[in-house]
C-alpha cells in the first residue's frame, strides 16, 4: 500500500498558506506578437510562487500571488500599469519585461511611489544606476556585459572589424555606447561601422551590406526576434561567401527564434549571449525546476522552453523576493526593499548568490555568468562556450 507513506509525507508538509495574499505584480508585453520572453518570465514567477506557497507562503503563512498587467511593450502603458499596481494593498514589488525602454520610463515612478521594480531581463545599463535607495533590482545581464562578451568572442575568432547593426532605440544606443567603450579599451578589433534600423522595417539587407562594404568581418547584432529573423532569412538567401558571422545580443531569444527563422537559421553562423540554459544543466535545482516547468506548462522537455533566461531570472528573483518579505516581516515596500539588500539566497537556478543584492549593488549577476549559445538543429539553444 502506498497510502501510509503518502500520509506520512503529507504530515511532513507545511499547512497550505492562508490569510490575505501578498502580491507580486508582473508587467509584461503580453500583447506583443512575437515575444516569448513574457511567457518565460511569467512561468518562472509562477513556478517560484507555487514553490514558495507550497513551502507555507510568506510572512508566516500568507500566500504569495501574482497580479498581471499587459503593457504591450509600450512604455506609456507600462508606466500606467506600474501606477495601478502600486496602488494595490499588500503589493510589494512589480516585475518588469524585457524592454529597456519600458523600464527606463518606469524608473521615476518606482522611486516616486516607493514600489520595488524587479528586472529579470531588460539590459540597458542605465536601468540600474547604483544610486543608494534605488528601488530597482536586476537579475539579468546588462548591455555593456553583453557587448563585452560578444566583442571578446569576435576577438577570439580573430575578427578584425566588426559592424554594429542596432535598433535605433535606447537599447541600441546603450549597446553602441558599450561597444565603443569596450573597443576603446581593446585595440586590435576595429569598428567597421554602425547601422541603425527602426522596428518594423521590411528589410535589413541594406544595413548589412553597408557594414560588409565597410569592411566588417562579423556583425554584432542588437535586435529582437522579429528583426533578427528577417536578417537571418536575408543572409541565408545570400551566397555563402557573403554571409558574415553574426554575434547577437540576446534580444533574438525573446521570441521563438527558430520558428521565426525556419531552416535559414541553420545556414547562418549565429551565436547569442545567454546566462542560463536547461540544456546540459545538471544542477539539482535546474533539474527540479525543469521537471516542474515541463509538467506545469506541458513542455516536451525543459530545454524546449523558449527564452529560458526569462524563466530562470524570474524564478530566482521571485524566490529572493519571498525571502526578503519574510526577512522584512512585513509587506511594507521600503522595508522589503531594505531586506532585498540583506537577504541571502544560495540555491538559485542561475547560480548560487550568497547575498544577491547589497545596498551598493543591485545587480544579482556578474559578467562571469554570461556564455555564448547556439541553436542546435533541433532548435534548442545550447551553450557553446564562455567568452
Amino acid at each position: 500500500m502506498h497510502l501510509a507513506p503518502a500520509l506520512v509525507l503529507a504530515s511532513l508538509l507545511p499547512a497550505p498558506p492562508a490569510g490575505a495574499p501578498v502580491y507580486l505584480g508582473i508587467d509584461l508585453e503580453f500583447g506583443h506578437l512575437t515575444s516569448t520572453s513574457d511567457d518565460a518570465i511569467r512561468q518562472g514567477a509562477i513556478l517560484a510562487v507555487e514553490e514558495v506557497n507550497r513551502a507555507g507562503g510568506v510572512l508566516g503563512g500568507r500566500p504569495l500571488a501574482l497580479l498581471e498587467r499587459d503593457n504591450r511593450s509600450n512604455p506609456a502603458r507600462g508606466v500606467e500599469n506600474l501606477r495601478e499596481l502600486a496602488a494595490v494593498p499588500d503589493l510589494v514589488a512589480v516585475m518588469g519585461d524585457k524592454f529597456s525602454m519600458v523600464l527606463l520610463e518606469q524608473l521615476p515612478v518606482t522611486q516616486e511611489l516607493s514600489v520595488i521594480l524587479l528586472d529579470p531581463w531588460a539590459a540597458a545599463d542605465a536601468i540600474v544606476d547604483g544610486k543608494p535607495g534605488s528601488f530597482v533590482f536586476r537579475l539579468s545581464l546588462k548591455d555593456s556585459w553583453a557587448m563585452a562578451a560578444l566583442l571578446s568572442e569576435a576577438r577570439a575568432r580573430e575578427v578584425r572589424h566588426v559592424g554594429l547593426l542596432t535598433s535605433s532605440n535606447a537599447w541600441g544606443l546603450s549597446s553602441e555606447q558599450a561597444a565603443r567603450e569596450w573597443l576603446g579599451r581593446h585595440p586590435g578589433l576595429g569598428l567597421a561601422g554602425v547601422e541603425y534600423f527602426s522596428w518594423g522595417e521590411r528589410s535589413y539587407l541594406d544595413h548589412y551590406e553597408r557594414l560588409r562594404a565597410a569592411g566588417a568581418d562579423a556583425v554584432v547584432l542588437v535586435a529582437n526576434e522579429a528583426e533578427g529573423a528577417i536578417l537571418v532569412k536575408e543572409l541565408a538567401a545570400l551566397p555563402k561567401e557573403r554571409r558574415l558571422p553574426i554575434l547577437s545580443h540576446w534580444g533574438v531569444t525573446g521570441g521563438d527564434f527558430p520558428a521565426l527563422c525556419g531552416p535559414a537559421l541553420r545556414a547562418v553562423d549565429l551565436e547569442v549571449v545567454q546566462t542560463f540554459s536547461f540544456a546540459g544543466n545538471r544542477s539539482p535545482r535546474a533539474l527540479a525546476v525543469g521537471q516542474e516547468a515541463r509538467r506545469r506548462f506541458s513542455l516536451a522537455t525543459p530545454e524546449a522552453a523558449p527564452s529560458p533566461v526569462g524563466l530562470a531570472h524570474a524564478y530566482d528573483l521571485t524566490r529572493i523576493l519571498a525571502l526578503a518579505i519574510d526577512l522584512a516581516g512585513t509587506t511594507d515596500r521600503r522595508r522589503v526593499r531594505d531586506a532585498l539588500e540583506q537577504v541571502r539566497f544560495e540555491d538559485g537556478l542561475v547560480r548560487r548568490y550568497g547575498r544577491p543584492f547589497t545596498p551598493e549593488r543591485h545587480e544579482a549577476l556578474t559578467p562571469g555568468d554570461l556564455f555564448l549559445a547556439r541553436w542546435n538543429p533541433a532548435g534548442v539553444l545550447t551553450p557553446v562556450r564562455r567568452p
Partner: protein
Amino acid sequence: MKPAPAAPSGAPAAAAGPLARARAWIGQSLDRQLAFVTVVLALVVLVPATALSFTLSLRLMERDLDARLDAQAELHGARIAMAVHAARDTLADVAASPLLGTALVDAQGWQHYGAPFLRSLHIPLPVPTRLALCDFRGRVIAASGAPPTLAPLDWVEPVVERGEWRALVRGEGEEARLLLLAPVRYAGTGTVEGAVAAELPLPALAEHAFRGGGPARLLSAGGAILAGDRTAWTGRRWRELPVALPDPFDGLGLKIQSGGGVGQLASASAGLLLVHLAVAAGVLALGLVIARRMALRLTGPLVALAGSVEAISRSGALSTRAPVTGHDEVGRLAEGFNGMLARLEAAQAAAEEAHRGERREAEQALRLAHGALERSNDAISIDEASGRIAYVNEAACRLLGLPRERLEGRHTWEVDPNLSRGRWAQLWTLVQTAGRYTAERAVPNSGGPPRWIEVGVHPLRFGEADYCVSVMRDVTSRREAEAALRLAGVGTLAAGAAHEINNPLTSVMGNLAWLRQALEEAAVGGPAPDLGEASDAAREAYQASERVRDVVRGLKDFARPDEEPQEPTDLAAVVRGAVTLARHEVRHKGRLVERYGQAPQVLAAGRRLEQVLVNLLTNAAHALPDAGDAGEVQVSVGTTAEGEAFAEVRDNGSGMAPEVRSRVFEPFFTTKPVGAGTGLGLSICHGIVASFGGRIEVESAPGSGSAFRVVLPPLSSYALGGAPAAPQALPASPAGAVPPLPPGLRLLVVDDDRPVLRAVTRALGQGPEVVAIADPHEALRRMLAGERFDLVLCDVMMPGLSGMEIHAALLQARPALADRLVFMTGGAFTPRAREFLATLPNPCLDKPFEPEDLRRAVLERLPRMGAPA
C-alpha cells in the same frame, strides 16, 4: 372732340362726383371711348407684361448671380478639400513610418532619431501646419514645432481604441483650427499605441481658399462662422455649399458661404426696373398715338353718320338720308341705314293707314257695345275693387232712380243701402274667389214699395285691374208672380192642411168630448167612467194632436220670409220637409216612394228650395191619373257623376210631348185648365234654382211619366272655407222616461195664453212650486222685486211685453236670473225674434212640446245654474 357738356346745375352734379363726370365725358364720343379702351387695354397688357418681364429678368439675374456664387463656393470648398487631402496624405505617410511606431515605445531614443525625422518632414500644405505624435492617452510625445492643443481628448477613444481617423474643429475666431488625427500602429503588437495629429489654422486655410474671390466664409456643421467674413450679410445675396472633404473626414459637415456684393443685386434690379418702366412708357405713348389716329379715322364717318341720324331723329323726317362716305363698314352702315329709313317710311305710311282702319272698326265695335249696354233692360254696373262705381248704364240709372253723374265715381255703399264698406269687401272677396254671386234684394223705391232686384255679380279682369260687373234685373214682377204662386200654393196647401188637420181634429174633439162628458157625469154623481176606455180616448186624442202639430210645423216652415240668405244646406233635409208638406197631395193620387242617398251640402236658401220641391211634388201628383192605384211618385236624393247634389221627383203619369217639354219653363205656360194654375210655377222654380247656381233637368215622354231633377253645385266648389256650424238646437227627445222634477224647486211660468199656461203648469208636475203668470208685466215686476225663482219659463211673443224685453230688463237688473230664462215659442215670426233666439245661449222650446221635453229642458238647465237667483 366735343366739349364736355355743362354739368347739370345743383347738388346732383356735385353728388355725381368726378368719376361719374369722367365716365359721362368719355361716354359722349366714340373716339374718347376708343382712346380710353386703348389706354385700359395698354395698361392691362403692359402692366402685367412689364411686371412679368421685370420679374423674369430679376430671376435670371439672381440665377446668374447664384451660379457665380455657387461656382465661387465650390472653388473655395475645393481648395479647402485639397488642403485637407494633402494633410491627410501626409498624416497617413507619417503614421505608417516605422520610426513613429518605434518612437511610441522608445521615448529616450526618440530624441536621437525622431526629432530629426519630424523636422525633416516636408509638409506640402499651403498653410503652416503643426504635426505631433501622441501616446495612447493623447499626450504629446513629440511635435514638429510648438505642440498643438489636442484637448479635449474626446478623440482618443475612437482613434486609439478603434483605430479611426478623426477631423475636428477646435477653437474660435482667429484661433479656429482644423485638427486631423490618424492612428499610429506599433509593429511589435500590431495595435494602435498612439496617434499623429496635424493642426491646420482655419483663418489661414480660409484665406488661402478664398483668395481672389468675393466675400466668403467657412461654417461649421452647426452654422458657426469659423473663418472668413464675419460681418452680417444684410442686403447681400449668398449661397451655401457643403465642403466635400476627402474620406474619412467627409462627415465633418463644413460649409462654405459665398456672398455677392452689398446692394449689387438691388442696384442692378433698380436699373432693370427703370429700363422696363421706360420701355413700358414708350410703348404706351406710341400705342396712344396710333390709337388716336386710328380712332379718328374710324370715328370720322361714324360721327358724320351720327349727325345725320340725330338730325333725322330730331326732325322725324324719314325722307332724309345719311351721307354715304365709302364702301367700308361705315359706308355700308349708312347705306343700310338709308335703306332702313326707306322701309320705315313705307311701313309708317302703311301702318298709319291700317291703324286708321282698325281704329274705325274698334270705335264702331265700342259704340255698338256701348249702345247695347246702354239699351240693355238689365241694369249694369261696373265697380272697382275699392267699391268705386266705374260705369252704370241707362237701365241702372233708371233702376236706381239716380242720374249717371250721381252714380259713377261714387262708392257702391253710398248708393246701395244694403251695402257697407265691410260688406262690400266681403262681397268682393266672395265674387273673386267663387267666380259669381247671385242674390235678390229689395231696394228702396222713392214714392213706392221697395223694388226687388236680382243681382248677378261676376268678376272681370280688364288690363291689370279687377272689376265686378253687376247685372241687376228688376224682378219685382216675378216676385209678385211668385207670391201669387205661393198664395196659390198656400191655398192648395191650406185645403190639404185643412183636410190633414180636420181628420185628427175630429178624433181629438170626439175623444175629448166623450172624456169631458164622462168626467162631468162622474163629478155630479154619475157612474165612474171606464178607466181603460178613458185612457184609450185620451191617448187617441193625444196621437191626433201630434199629427196636427206636424202639419202646423210644416206650414210654419213654408211661411218663412223670402229674404232668407243662402247658406250651407242639407238637400235631403229640404226634400224631407217638402215631402211632409206635399204628402197629402200625393197620397190621394198614388204612392210616394222616398230614396235618400248621399249628397253633398249645397249653398242655397233652404226654404225657397223647399218651395221648389213642393212645387215639383205637387205637379207630379197632378200628373198622376185620378183613378186607379198604379200612380207613383218617386223622390230621390243623391250625387251626380260630376259630384253635384241632386233631388229628383219622378212620376209615372201621363208624361209630356216634346213640344210641351221644351216650353215648361216659360212663364205663364201651363197645361192646366184655366184657373187651375198660374203658369208661373216652373218658371219661378227655374229662377230660384238658377239663383243658387243650379239647374233643373227634365226628362219626359208621353205615357211614361216625367222626371224633374234639381241639380246644385256642391258647397265645396265655392272655395269659401268650411261650412258654417249648424245652428244650435236642443237635442231631440231621447228615448226613455224623464224623471219627475224634484220638490223644493220654485219655477215661474210666463205665457199670455192661459190654456198653455195651465198645460205647462200641469206638465211640470207636483214636485216643484210653480208660479204661473199670464201677464208679462206682472211677471217682470215680481222678478225685478227680487222674488226667488230657480228657473223661468217664458213665452217669446206676448202682447205688450215680449220675452226679449223681459230678458233685456233682467240683464240689466238681475243678470243671474236672465241666464235662467228658458224660452217657449209657437213660432218666432219676426226676423228680430229669430235673430234674438239665435244669438242667446238660453234654450228655446218650440211649441207644442211634450211634457217630457219640458221637464228635460228644466233638468238640463238647472245643474248649470247652481244656487237659485
